[in-house]
C-alpha cells in the first residue's frame, strides 16, 4: 500500500487512469485494486459494474462530469474512497437518466459499508465540484500525493 493514507475507519487513495477508455475500464481497475488490497470482496467489481448499468452515477458538473460508482455495502470489507483522474474523459450515464451520456474525467469510487451520518461524503464531493474552477484544477493534477491531499483537506474535509 506504500504511501496510501489510512484513518481509523476509511482508506483513502488516488489514481490516474491514462489508459482507461470506458467506464468499465475505470470501475474494473479501481475495484480490482481495492480487492487486491483487501477492502472489498470478489463480488464487488461485478456488483458495481451491474449497478452502474442499472442506476448510473454520473453527475454533469461543468466543464467535465464526475461519477461516484458504488454498490451494496455487503461487498465492502473495510471502507475505502479512491479518487481517480481520467485524463481522456470516458462516458458514464447520468444519475437518474440512463439515456443521457456525459463525459467524465474524475471518478470517486465509494466503497462504503453503510449510512454515514457523521460524514456526508457525497455532499462534500458535490459541493466542491459545483465550482467549475475546482473541476478544472483537480482534473489537471498529475500527482497522486496532491490529489490525496486535496481529497482529504478540501473535498471531504476529514482530519488526518
Amino acid at each position: 500500500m506504500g504511501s496510501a493514507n489510512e484513518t481509523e475507519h476509511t482508506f483513502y487513495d488516488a489514481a490516474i487512469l491514462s489508459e482507461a477508455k470506458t467506464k468499465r475500464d475505470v470501475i474494473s481497475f479501481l475495484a480490482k485494486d481495492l480487492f487486491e488490497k483487501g477492502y472489498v470482496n470478489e463480488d464487488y467489481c461485478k456488483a458495481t459494474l451491474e449497478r452502474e448499468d442499472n442506476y448510473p452515477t454520473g453527475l454533469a458538473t461543468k466543464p467535465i462530469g464526475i461519477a461516484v460508482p458504488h454498490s451494496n455495502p455487503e461487498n465492502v470489507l473495510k471502507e475505502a474512497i479512491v479518487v481517480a483522474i481520467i485524463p481522456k474523459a470516458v462516458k458514464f450515464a447520468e444519475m437518474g437518466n440512463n439515456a443521457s451520456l456525459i463525459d467524465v474525467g474524475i471518478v470517486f469510487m465509494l466503497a462504503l459499508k453503510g449510512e454515514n451520518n457523521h460524514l456526508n461524503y457525497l455532499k462534500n464531493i458535490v459541493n466542491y465540484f459545483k465550482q467549475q474552477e475546482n473541476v478544472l484544477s483537480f482534473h489537471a493534477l498529475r500527482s497522486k500525493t496532491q490529489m490525496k491531499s486535496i481529497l482529504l483537506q478540501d473535498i471531504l474535509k476529514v482530519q488526518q
Partner: protein
Amino acid sequence: MSKKVKILCCCGAGICTSNYLREEIEDRLKEEGLSKEVTVNLCRVTDVEETLSGGSIDLLVTTVEMKGDYSVPMIRALGIMLDEAAAKKALDEIIDNVRTIMKE
C-alpha cells in the same frame, strides 16, 4: 395531537444518494420546525416493496427512476444534487406532503 410522519428515502444501493437526500430533508424540516414530527429512513430500491409492506411508511422519496405504483405517495427527487431549482421543488413537495399527512 398530529400524526408522526415516516419518510422512506430510496436509491440504488440505499447508502449514497438516499443519505444525501435525507440530510437535505432533515435540514429543511428543521427550518420548518417539523423535525420532531418526522423520521426519515433509508432503503435500497430493490427493498422498497418489502419495506412498504410493513405498513408504517407514509411517504416515499426516490433519487432513481421508478415505476411508482405504490400504496403511499411518491416524490421523484432526481437531479437534486446539481440543480438547486430541482432540489427546492422536491423539498417543497416533500414539506407539502408532510403537512397534509400530519393532518390525517
